[in-house]
């Protein structure tokens, strides 16, 4: 019995496998299995069985298995009775753990005419069901899903519950949602009416029709794969409708059913939709691009906010160029930012307006002063455009006249862009300005949004409201006048306006409120009280949210209630000004008069959106642009400012990424400001000040979320110019005497071609680096001077100099020069004594400053060389706390203090200058000019160079060469020895190699190459003592520069040198000469000698 049983079972197994084999051969498998990708269970199972199975390879086995499973499924499906074909055409594949389990899902599919695939196949599966995906699959979603929809299991359950196939789109897996394309973008706002109809029609149509039409969409998709990728979800409503269809479309498309001949008119519609996409493009680009720039964030956002966010190719004639909306990506961020800013537009219109009608406003002013005097009943008309921004947009689109329309940056339904203006149909939905688009769309899904169109606004009218004073006009019927004005406005601009007439500005404004939309209202003085009584408090201008809340707490909701409160208690509660304002306003009292143009107290620009920096360079670049903007604004207003405030929004430590996209979020507000003696609007000066201010923050640039620059203490540009002029003329007169004396006093900065100019530049350099260590205020003065090549002495204290009569000044100059010589004679170590002197008088201060560098030339060199590298490194001999300040300052000044050309230096003047000074001056001359002279092949990178020009200067004053040599062979971006070595043919080689390797590289990397090349030269040429000396000097200074910070480099260099000393006589001489010096230097720094094996 037992044996028989087993026997029979084996026989069935046998027959089974036979059948299986048969099936496998019969079934032509073009099914590409992805079994490997779909989990280990299949693999392990198959590999185990494959050994003894009759299948030739894995794929045939899988094919067979699939086939059998299908058969099994089919038989089971046919067995289950009374099924509804909900899922007909749907074939699901379940990936991973789901609730309900895959077996349950399989049961559902059996029941409702769907298919269930055990193994994924591109050709059979239409939907992938899963509730969670591993990160790797999310990242590579296309490889994973092969473009199929990845849907949550609830889709199936809900579909069954609804007894019809629901759209899968809302059930997309959140992780994936951001990646999946949608059809919805094809159908856009402009044709919304049309397309809506079409779609509702389509939905009502019988299934086959729909299916027929959608392969077209599929084809379209194929034709424009790029466009498919660029689809943008435009409108919730439409997308909801289209989603259904699109899901079906994909079904059809995936199943590769033959396309029916009946192609209905959809093609046309689609073409239309396509064309409307052009319009859509402009709408969407605003906010969408940045999200595309950061694909990583799109994964983390669970909602479908970033769906299909892509950038449109600007193939259309709209010419909309790619816009990046973060400081990270857009080099012209500031410019674009303000170009797209509504608030900026509104904020600056006044200036533009004033520029356009300068006489008009002054005329008004006069009128007002009159009217104020006379106590006759005033009539003020307030004209306000109805939802200005929107009406300008829709005035050319009558179709949208009664549709809810809003203007904002983005039209993404989940966007966080703020609505700036909405028309009355939209307002009836509760949409208000300042709302996020997201919320607005929730309130009103039909809402049509438009981007700003600033040119059109400008074109139409400059701003959307105006107060007119009719008191003097003696108009008998103000209402008639108002209506005529409104009519005229409508005729010229095709935008409607509302008008309010009242006894003062407040009442006129309140009247307008009642009049809107497109109406007018006259509140006569008699009716003021009635009108105000029931007016809610927040209708009063100047009462914002906070104040309203406070009032509400006191159960004050209307002006009538507000009137009950005494003025005193109001002032007590809300402060003097606000209290009085409340008291007055609640009684309809407004003392303001029309046309008073408030002089702006400060001018500035803030950018609090999209500010993200990677590093200091980004930040500086941004600041430069911001300075340009502010400077432009200053120039527009024709004013100059003296106080500069830099405000920074710094991300709070624990703040999350802000809700508003690229917004500033939760921030700390920091600010620093400086005041300079002379008002300016100069961009360069602004930039320098701002750079310096930024330095005061000690902030990680990555934390910066917003930057604002404000200029206050404004002065009229004309008057300040005059001031400058007098100062300048006075200065030039002073400079004459200076020139006579041939001392480089540097008061004559204005004749820029004079040699003195150059010399004092040199001095001020040293001053900038050393003096400002202990005098920060002075340093602000220096850097803040408005003239681009400023007279440094005057910067030190303009007040003092201004008060000096010119005779006294020139006399002082003489004394000063004499002192200078004394200082030089006294030599080193006198800085202390002179500093006390210098503090007493500004002029003396410079004197001392000039002295400083000579007493201690090495640290000075270091300052400069380190400046070049833009590193705040430790400076020899100066205190830790101050050294970064030093480098910073000297950095700032270098730009404007350098003489523009060496040719501007008068050789005769130069020769009169004491040797030490001469050396320093030459040291600080810009190398790019020096190169003109000696035709160095090297191109200097950047703007900063202070190389000494040894060869060049030797023509003029041979005495200086040694000084220059001693101090600064290694100073500068382009070390000066390269010039020096031009004379010597063999050493020039070194310069060339060094040049090739990039100037900042270390000598050790250059040396081997040079030595190998030098070997050839060595044979042909004799060795001159001079060459050896120069080489020694070069190495000595290299040791000096490097010994403290990079002993390894020195070690490598000298090991190399020693090695070559064996081969080359030249190097053995050099080595022998330099070695004692090296050991001494090492001993000084490290208390030992270098071990040279």
């Amino acid at each position: 019995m037992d044996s028989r049983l087993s026997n029979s079972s084996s026989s069935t197994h046998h027959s089974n496998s036979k059948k299986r084999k048969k099936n496998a051969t019969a079934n032509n498998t073009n099914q590409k299995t992805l079994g490997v990708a779909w989990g280990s269970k299949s693999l392990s199972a198959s590999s185990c069985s494959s050994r003894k199975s009759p299948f030739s390879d894995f794929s045939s086995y899988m094919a067979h298995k699939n086939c059998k499973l299908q058969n099994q499924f089919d038989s089971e499906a046919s067995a289950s009775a009374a099924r509804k074909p909900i899922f007909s055409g749907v074939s699901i594949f379940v990936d991973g753990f789901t609730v309900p389990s895959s077996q349950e899902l399989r049961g559902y599919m059996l029941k409702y005419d769907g298919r269930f695939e055990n193994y994924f196949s591109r050709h059979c599966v239409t939907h992938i069901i899963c509730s969670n995906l591993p990160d790797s699959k999310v990242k590579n979603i296309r490889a994973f899903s092969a473009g199929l929809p990845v849907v949550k299991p609830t889709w199936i359950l809900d579909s069954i519950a609804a007894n019809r196939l629901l759209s899968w789109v809302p059930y997309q897996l959140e992780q994936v949602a951001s990646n999946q394309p949608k059809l919805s973008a094809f159908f856009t706002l402009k044709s919304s009416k049309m397309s809506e109809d079409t779609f509702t029609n389509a939905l009502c149509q019988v299934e086959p029709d729909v299916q027929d039409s959608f392969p077209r969409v599929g084809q379209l998709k194929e034709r424009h794969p790029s466009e498919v990728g660029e689809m943008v979800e435009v409108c919730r409503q439409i997308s909801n409708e289209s989603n259904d269809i699109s899901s079906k479309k994909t079904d059809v498309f995936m199943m590769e059913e033959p396309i029916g001949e009946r192609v209905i008119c959809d093609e046309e519609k689609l073409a239309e939709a396509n064309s409307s996409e052009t319009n859509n493009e402009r709408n969407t680009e605003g906010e969408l691009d940045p999200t595309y720039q950061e694909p990583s964030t799109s994964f983390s956002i669970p909602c479908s906010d970033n769906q299909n966010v892509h950038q449109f190719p600007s193939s259309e004639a709209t010419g909309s160029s790619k816009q990046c909306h973060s400081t990270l990506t857009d080099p012209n961020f500031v410019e674009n930012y303000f170009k797209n800013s509504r608030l900026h537009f509104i904020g600056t219109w006044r200036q533009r307006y004033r520029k356009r009608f300068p006489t008009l406003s002054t005329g008004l002013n006069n009128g007002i002063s009159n009217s104020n005097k006379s106590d006759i009943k005033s009539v003020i008309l307030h004209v306000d455009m109805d939802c200005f921004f929107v009406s300008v947009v829709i005035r050319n689109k009558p179709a949208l006249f009664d549709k809810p329309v809003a203007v904002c940056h983005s039209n993404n339904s989940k966007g966080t862009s703020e609505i700036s203006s909405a028309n009355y149909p939209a307002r009836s939905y509760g949409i208000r300005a300042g709302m996020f688009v997201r919320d607005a769309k929730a309130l009103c899904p039909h809402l049509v949004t438009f981007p700003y169109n600033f040119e059109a606004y400008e074109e139409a009218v400059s701003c959307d409201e105006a107060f007119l004073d009719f008191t003097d006009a003696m108009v008998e019927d103000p209402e008639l006048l108002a209506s005529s004005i409104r009519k005229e406005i409508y005729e010229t601009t095709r935008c409607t306006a509302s008008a309010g007439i009242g006894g003062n500005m407040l009442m006129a404004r309140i009247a307008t409120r009642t009049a809107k939309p497109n109406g007018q209202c006259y509140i006569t003085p008699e009716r003021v009280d009635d009108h105000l009584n029931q007016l809610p408090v927040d209708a009063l201008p100047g009462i914002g949210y906070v104040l309203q809340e406070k009032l509400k707490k006191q159960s004050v909701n209307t002006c009538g209630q507000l009137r009950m409160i005494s003025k005193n208690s109001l002032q007590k509660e809300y402060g003097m000004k606000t209290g009085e304002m409340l008291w007055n306003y609640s009684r309809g009292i407004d003392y303001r008069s029309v046309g008073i143009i408030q002089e702006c107290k400060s001018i500035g620009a803030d950018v609090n959106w999209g500010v993200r920096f990677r590093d200091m360079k980004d930040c500086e670049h941004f600041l430069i642009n911001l300075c340009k903007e502010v400077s432009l604004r200053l120039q527009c207003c024709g004013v100059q400012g003296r106080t500069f405030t830099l405000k920074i929004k710094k991300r709070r430590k624990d703040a999350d990424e802000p809700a508003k996209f690229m917004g500033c979020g939760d921030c700390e507000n920091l600010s620093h400001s400086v005041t300079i003696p002379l008002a300016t609007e100069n961009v360069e000066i602004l930039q320098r000040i701002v750079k310096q201010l930024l330095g005061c923050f000690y902030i990680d640039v990555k934390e910066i979320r917003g930057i604002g620059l404000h200029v206050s203490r404004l002065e009229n540009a004309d008057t300040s110019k005059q001031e400058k002029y007098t100062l300048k003329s006075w200065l030039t007169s002073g400079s004459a005497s200076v020139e006579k004396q041939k001392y480089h006093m540097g008061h004559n900065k204005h004749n820029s071609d004079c040699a003195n100019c150059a010399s004092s530049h040199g001095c001020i350099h040293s001053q900038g680096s050393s003096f400002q260590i202990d005098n920060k205020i002075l340093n602000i003065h220096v850097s803040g001077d408005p003239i681009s090549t400023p007279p440094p002495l005057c910067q030190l204290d303009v007040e003092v100099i201004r008060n000096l009569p010119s005779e006294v000044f020139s006399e002082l100059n003489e004394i000063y020069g004499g002192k200078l010589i004394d200082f030089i004679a006294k030599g080193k170590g006198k800085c202390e004594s002179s500093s006390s002197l210098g503090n007493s008088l500004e002029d003396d201060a410079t004197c001392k400053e000039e002295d400083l560098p000579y007493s201690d030339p090495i640290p000075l060199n270091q300052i400069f060389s380190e400046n070049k590298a833009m590193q705040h490194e430790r400076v020899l001999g100066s205190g830790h706390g101050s050294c970064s300040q030093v480098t910073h300052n000297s950095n700032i000044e270098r730009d404007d203090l350098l003489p523009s050309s060496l040719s501007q230096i008068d050789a005769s003047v130069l020769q009169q200058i004491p040797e030490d000074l001469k050396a320093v001056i030459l040291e600080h001359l810009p190398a790019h000019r020096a190169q003109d002279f000696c035709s160095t092949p090297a191109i200097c990178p950047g703007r900063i160079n202070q190389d000494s020009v040894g060869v060049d200067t030797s023509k003029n004053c041979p005495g200086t060469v040694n000084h220059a040599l001693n101090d600064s062979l290694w100073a500068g971006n382009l070390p000066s020895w390269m010039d020096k070595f031009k004379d010597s043919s063999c050493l020039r080689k070194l310069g060339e190699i060094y040049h090739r390797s990039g100037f900042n590289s270390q000598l050790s990397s250059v040396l081997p190459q040079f030595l190998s090349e030098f070997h050839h030269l060595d044979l042909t040429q004799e060795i001159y003592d001079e060459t050896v000396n120069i080489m020694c000097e070069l190495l000595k200074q290299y040791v000096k520069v490097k010994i403290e910070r990079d002993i390894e480099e020195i070690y490598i260099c000298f090991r190399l040198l020693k090695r070559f000393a064996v081969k080359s006589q030249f190097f053995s001489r050099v080595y022998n000469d330099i070695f004692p010096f090296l050991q001494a230097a090492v001993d000084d720094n490290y208390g030992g000698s270098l071990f040279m094996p």
Partner: protein
Amino acid sequence: MQRKENETPQGQAASVLVEFLEVAITAVVFLKGVYPSGFLLPSLDSPSSMPFLFFFFFFFLLLLLLLLLLLLLLLLLFDVGKGAFERRRYMNVVVQRARHPQLRYYIHATVSGLLPFLQKGMVDRVAVVFFNTDNVPLEKFIFKLTVNQSYGSSVEGVDLQISLRSFLAKLSVSESLTKKLPPDCRWEITGNFQLLPETGTSKEANFWIPTDTKQWEQPLFITPIRSMSSDPLCLQFYIEHPSLSESSVL
């Protein structure tokens, strides 16, 4: 308080530096072979792929068995072959870590005791000194540090680590630069302060005692190993040893 200090670039640099020093000092000690280093560990560590020759299969099997038995015996009974160090990865470089808890603690405690002083920039150099039996220093491995106190912007810890990594890499191949130590030597970690921390003012300062290390009478020699100068940390690593005459005497 601790975290607040770490926010300054100096603090950041110092904490990275402390970590680095711990590893580097261990590496120096390992390099000098003061403690026995394991001989079996490398063979265990590196996965060796044997040539699969059928011929020698049984032979190998036997050999392996024998070896395994031996190894087990050694490991279990004598604790041999493990050495004083174990291989670890630090900043993606293979480094050694002391196995003995006391040794590990000594290095760790010493270096982390330096942290507050490093932050203030008071430490001039940290030295690992090797003495012979007479307490005469034979060789000093010196880390000369400069922490720029005025450096303002934040430190990229990663950048710093990468540059510090090169020290470890260089150190591991610079055995030839050093001298062979005689047996029975001892070693210590010393720190050179720019100014003596006042004892009693802070708890940290009390950990430090003045060293009685004898100074060399002869001029010493320096062999630089590695230098790094980047803000806010500038680090020089070199070996100090007495002049050759003395070393030949020893």
